[in-house]
């Protein structure tokens, strides 16, 4: 039998992919040997992000690493991918929600309807603002043109933020050419890794969400064609990728806040930031009213957070 070849496109550019996906794919290819090879392509390399979902559904691309939100999946759960405001506090919240609180099943059902296999969800870093000018209060957010996730952007626009969506690889340039005033797309580790720390001056320590929820997806037919041992190997690969990010981001965020020299830290006082949190609960209820599935997911978030609260320290400190 001839070697199976998959084309996988990630949402990340080369510098970030070096950490968040490439090591795992390299391992996969080494182990799979003559059975299979996954060819990795970076953000917008083969297909622009806007066309990514359709391309996978049709089989132009075999597999994708992205969040549901940026690739605009036509599902009920898309709004929860990426940064759904205040849905998680730590990166471990995401796998727990998916594996123990039933999100996997909901996602699987939603994507199966569209001929796409939802393979595995994992956590990335928290969502912070990195800007050219300092942000010390909510008023400082007004009129800032910021690259961010669609849903996070829609949510933050009530505080005067102007969300702008551009191809991921063009962000650094856009900050320099004045198309953007800043970025609300990642934690500080990524700001340093992809070069955004070189074009911005300030890092806001308050976050809109504690962890990014992203997934691996595949074209359903192509996935079903895989022999069992390769399906198993794929699962191990994704788990190892998730694990790498857990420690890489967790350690990186702390280390760069303490030792990083390129960005100054600023903070909006907790009392003031509480307005944003309060707006988030309202936003959750608005989203829940949009459909039954969305209500179900919002309920799971609420239940999860209540239980974490009850569990007390170290799960929640407030």
């Amino acid at each position, binding site marked *: 039998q001839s070697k199976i070849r998959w084309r996988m496109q990630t949402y990340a550019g080369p510098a970030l992919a070096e950490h968040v996906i490439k090591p795992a794919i390299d391992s996969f290819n080494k182990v799979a040997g003559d059975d299979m090879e996954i060819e990795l392509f970076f953000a917008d390399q083969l297909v622009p992000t806007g*066309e990514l979902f359709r391309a996978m559904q049709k089989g132009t691309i075999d597999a994708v690493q992205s969040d549901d939100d940026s690739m605009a999946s036509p599902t009920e759960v898309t709004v929860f991918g990426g940064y759904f405001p205040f849905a998680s506090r730590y990166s471990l919240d995401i796998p727990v929600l998916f594996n123990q609180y039933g999100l996997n099943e909901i996602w699987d059902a939603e994507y199966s309807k569209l001929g796409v296999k939802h393979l595995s969800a994992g956590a990335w870093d928290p969502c912070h603002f990195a800007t050219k000018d300092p942000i010390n209060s909510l008023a400082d957010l007004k009129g800032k043109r910021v690259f961010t996730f669609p849903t996070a952007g829609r949510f933050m626009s009530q505080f005067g933020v102007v969300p702008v969506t551009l191809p991921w690889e063009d962000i650094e340039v856009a900050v320099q*050419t004045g198309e953007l005033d800043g970025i609300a797309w990642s934690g500080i580790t990524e700001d340093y890794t992809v070069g955004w720390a070189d074009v911005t001056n300030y890092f806001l320590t308050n976050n809109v969400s504690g962890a990014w929820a992203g997934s691996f997806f595949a074209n359903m037919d192509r996935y079903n064609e895989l022999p069992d041992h390769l399906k198993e190997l794929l699962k191990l690969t994704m788990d190892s990728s998730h694990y790498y990010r857990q420690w890489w981001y967790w350690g990186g965020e702390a280390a760069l806040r303490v030792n990083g020299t390129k960005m100054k830290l600023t903070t909006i006082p907790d009392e003031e930031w509480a307005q944003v949190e309060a707006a988030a609960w309202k936003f959750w209820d608005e989203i829940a009213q949009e459909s039954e599935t969305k209500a179900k997911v919002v309920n799971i978030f609420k239940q999860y957070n209540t239980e974490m609260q009850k569990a007390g320290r170290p799960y929640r400190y407030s």
Partner: protein
Amino acid sequence: MSYELIALLMFSSMMLMLMTGQRVFGAIGAVAALSAVLLWGTGGSDIPFSSAMKLMKWYPLLTLPMFIFMGYILSESKIADDLYKMFHVWMGPINGGLAIGTIGLMVLVSAMNGLSVAGMAIGATIALPELLRRGYDKRMVTGVVQAGSSLGILVPPSVVLVLYAMIARQPVGQLWLAGVIPGLVMAAMFILYIAIRCRLQPELGPALDKSERRVPLSEKLRLLRAGLLPLAIFAAMMVPFVNGWTSLVESSAIGAMAAFTAAILKGRMTKEVFEVSVRQTLAISCMFMWIILAALGFGAVFDGLGAVRAIENLFTDQLGLNPWVILIVMQLSFLVMGTFLDDTAMLVIVAPLYVPLVHALGFDLIWYGVLYTITTQIAYMTPPFGYNLFLMRAMAPPEISLRDIYGSIAPFVGVMLLALTLVMVFPEIALWLPQYVYAK
């Protein structure tokens, strides 16, 4: 099929298609579409279209029609006439002075538009007839206009550097600044060449007659004011941009409007000028955009079929060459390809192959952008295929034959190769200014 074979097949069939003389975008697009349909597998037929979506998201591409429009306004409305007169009066008394003045004119025109078209049009229609009338050597002046107008893509604003910036994902602002000093250095080298040559052979560029030289000082000063117009247009565009008040794309629109307004204020915006500028802007923008569309499709198919990997592998692993050798080989291959490949096509097809390699070899991509642009300038001018050559052929007065055009460029290409070498050996020539301005 092996990756190497796919690379070879796609590239050679594209060359073959281009040789037939079919429209460049059709030739490239057809090879992309055929390879996508036959070799990609499931869903390959969607790739050419998805490139159209990719092109749409390339925001800086909006500057392209703006700068083209600006260039046409400048050349069609002849608001550069006074500028020419200024150089004429001030530089005329020296041997070769009018040719030197023409280079000066070209530098100013370059600062107001992003392509070499406008410079070429202004040079060929205003400067060339005047120079010929005054006994300048026709080969010398043809070369001067071609070389001078090529500065249009090195001195900011520059469309070529915008396209390069999108391919290399480098900041346009820094690239533009990186082009400034090399552009001026090259202009200075052209001037030096003309001055020395005309000193040795005064018959190539005789000084103006006494009768023509008698211009009152007040008139001389009045003409000097003509130089303010390009400065004003340049400032209207660059000051808000450099200060971060407007973005790159917005600035290009301001520049286009500034040129438009200047033409109206000077009473030069006739119905015909308006018609030609607007129509030609559509025509040239379409030409560029359709080639970019086809080339993006070609690039995606080429990449997805593994051909890019094959080429990288060839250069780095199999040949095992030293980075500098690879870099020089790449520049040479550009020059060779420039002799038979369309310049825009070259930019959108070859640059995406080379840029990642240059990066992997550890070179600075801003610096390489300048090297790249100078190489493109040379390719623009060298026969048989060159954008500037075509334009020259179309615009030159009848007494200048194709032979003259081809023969005129040799010394200037020599100067440009020298400039290329200088920037290669001393990267600071390009990098000092952007580093100084963007120092955080």
